[in-house]
């Protein structure tokens, strides 16, 4: 018999209860348990960063955390970044404006990582941004649009 647990997790402000197999990663649970497929599994060994979500406000790899470990915690995924009315997060706007995405697969992890990073480092240098996203691999953009977007969003967010 599979080892399972009942968990209660708040995702993007909504509370969910579920019975999960204990070996299931948080990322797989979000994607296949809750249907929140915006979080992407890119390497499942914690290097590519595509699966990054915020747990209790901190950016973490959802492939390196079990769903059962999120019990009682608050998770924010890429689906939770924009306002309820559809207004994009400043980072999303900036990614759009600066061509910070091509295939879009790494984008959710980039956004969640940078949202947490900019909260703690509201006025970063380019170097700091590059190091902040060094745990997020993008094969398409060469990172430049992402870096520009992050720096621009930081300005916007400071102004607001």
């Amino acid at each position, binding site marked *: 018999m599979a080892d399972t647990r009942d968990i209660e997790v708040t995702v993007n402000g909504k509370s969910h209860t579920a019975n999960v*197999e204990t*070996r*299931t990663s948080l990322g797989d649970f979000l*994607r*296949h348990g809750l249907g*929140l*497929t*915006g*979080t*992407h*599994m*890119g*390497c*499942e*060994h914690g*290097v*590519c960063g*595509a699966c990054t979500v915020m747990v209790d406000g901190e950016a973490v790899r959802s492939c390196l955390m079990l769903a059962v470990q999120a019990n009682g915690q608050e998770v924010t*995924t*890429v*689906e939770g*970044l*924009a306002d309820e009315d559809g207004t*994009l997060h400043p980072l*999303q706007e900036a*990614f*759009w*404006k600066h*061509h910070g*995405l*091509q*295939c*879009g*697969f*790494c*984008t*959710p992890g980039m*956004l969640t990582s940078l949202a947490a990073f900019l909260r703690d480092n509201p006025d970063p240098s*380019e170097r700091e*941004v*590059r*190091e902040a*996203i*060094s745990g*997020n*691999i*993008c*094969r*398409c*953009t*060469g*990172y*430049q*649009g*992402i*870096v520009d977007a992050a720096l621009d969003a930081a300005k916007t967010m400071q102004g607001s």
Partner: protein
Amino acid sequence: MVVRYLGAEVQRMEDPRLLTGHGRYVDDITMAGMLEAAFLRAPLAHAKIRSIDTSRAEALEGVHRVFTHADFGEKYSHRMNQLYPAPVIEQNKTQYPLAKDEVCFVGETVAVVVADSRAIAEDALALIDVDYEALPAVVDIRTALEDGAPLAHADATSNLMGKMRSKFGDIEDAFGKADHVFSAGFMQHRGGCHSMETRGVIAKDDPWGDGLTLWTSAQSPYLIRRALATWLGESEERIRVVAPDVGGGFGPKAGFYPEEIAICLVARLMETPVKWIEDRREHFVSTTTQRDQYWDLEVACTSEGKILGLRGNITHENGAYIPYGILLPNSSLTPLPGAYSIAAIDVGVDIVFTNTIANSPVRGAGRPCGIYAVERMIQLVSRKLGIDPAEVRRRNYVRPDQMPYETGATLRGGAKCVYDSGDYEALLEKALELSDYNSFKERQATARAEGRYLGIGVSSCIEDTGMGPYEGTTVRVESSGKVAVRTGAASQGQGHHTMIAMLVAENLGVSPEDIMFESADTSKFPHGVGTIGSRVAANVGPSAFDAAKKVREKALKLAAEVLEASEADLDIEDGVVRVNGAPDLSITLGELAIQLSPASALRVPAGFDPLLEATSYDGSSGSPIACGSNVAEVEVDPGTGEVKVLRYSVAHDCGVMINPMIVHGQIVGGVVHGIGNALFERMIYDDQGQPLTMNYGEYLLPLASEMPRVDVTHMETPSPLNSLGVKGAGEGGTIPAAAAIVAAIENALEEFSVEIDYYPVDPQYLTELIDKGAAQAAE
């Protein structure tokens, strides 16, 4: 006011969806009754399969079935077809969907488990008992052709897949009259795909309904449909292949894989939808990579550095099977004169089997290798003759007055390689200016005084883009006024939707937001070719533009009748046809569409075909040749061998730019891929054919922290080969990058006389060269 989109930096139509987590990649798709699959893969590089026992796996709770080659039955027992037959292929080796009795690389598919979940399917893999008889494996292409070398296939006559040659001009004369002949040997290694989304497949078979449907993370859905139909012996009409959002392709997703057949068969035989998502460890061993080429070249030149001829040989690693014909060795040879007017070339390729995953094109295919080779020889001439590398290039470029310039080489389709347009020297000057090349020596001296080693490297390239035959587009105005645009070309992030919407919007006088774009679904458009070789802009671009133009003409013609005005007085703006000077006289495109698709018993206006629709297959009449010059500035730390890329400057010419923002993104992304090739990415096998770099801590993809800011400037020399004057831009950043980086490293370490003979250049290797150079200098 007519809105101009062509040439504007329009923000992408794709992005709001992708930015909010609403992309739809294969693994995001789910359907009732869907089961999940996992493949058992060969753990040995070469072995006979004596027996397979799946009974323990099948007994596991949650496992539905386990298939081996035999379980597919007689009807499905044949090898995959050669998609690109060529006379050069002396031994045609293709895979079975599941290995029959021999495995020829680590990762080859041996069995497939279908279970309630992927996790359970993986549990079952460990319970399949395969009795292998290990056979000797061949891994190193340098020794693979020697007598007595192990054979990659038990029934092969040798490890030679085939030989080919690019030969033109009077090579004997060139070397006979040369003042100097210099030679160099080097290895080029290019890594794998490593799209952030791995491959993935869902198959559903509904024999009494929709037929066989395959959702796959691929670049060429039509090629897959054809290959499936051929292999199954069934009609293409009964097979639908869809590439939904694809998380990067870069070449290896352009082919047809055994898993795509196997999952279709499994779904068919089990009468239920089945999903297989490649995991990252599988990606390393089951998605084709590019890997090794050894080059030995001789260059003949005058004392002034004018290059007269180039000759030599390449040993090209093919891997175990041939999924792409000879595409890769061919595209390594094709660019061989590079941006230069070299009268005589004679370079051969030995294509060699190894017991490793098959080779495939990776961003740029063989072009980065061919260009690297030419640029290395330019660098060699520069060093030997003491002429500035930029100056050697100036003395050798094909000049604008030589265009169209026929190199003598042959393109993949058999056409002659002709450089259509461009000013290579002017482009170089732009790159030099952008990089502050002329003041580099001062920067270098200042840094040297601080104990730092800076170097600069230049590289130029040409790129044959936009290969044919076509990539058609249909534009149809709906009754709502929305415009349906359909094409076959799949996008893996290149922004096709935006680019095509811009072209249609510009012609049709509609807003890009009103364009409903669909692509890469074989049920939506009759035929497409594929997103490879920087070909989409130069093929879909003209067809979309032309189709929209035809729709516009049709709309205006009908509107002229309806509004009783002269066509010349009509204009379309925001989906409404108006008569100039009579603003109240108007009709919407939607109303015109209704007239052309009337309800029952009504008539289509006389002289018109039904539907406000047009399809075009307009493309490029040859391969538009894009070009670029790059300058890399690096710092090398002799203490560690670390190379930092400080600056990177690109001057690029891809003809007319439809959306410069997208072109910029393609160039920068391409450069970083090229820097990855030059410095980081290496897929390593041990001598038994076991892959060693099997995770992203060991296979090193370029990260933001090590990548430089890339400065890009453009020239726009319109291509005469298509209606828009566009050339491809997807690979132009990658192609020249390794040569520029390697030249810059050598320049930085000039005092140690460092000559680099392979890439990716790793720091250990550099310190060995530095220490050797220092020791020699001390003697």
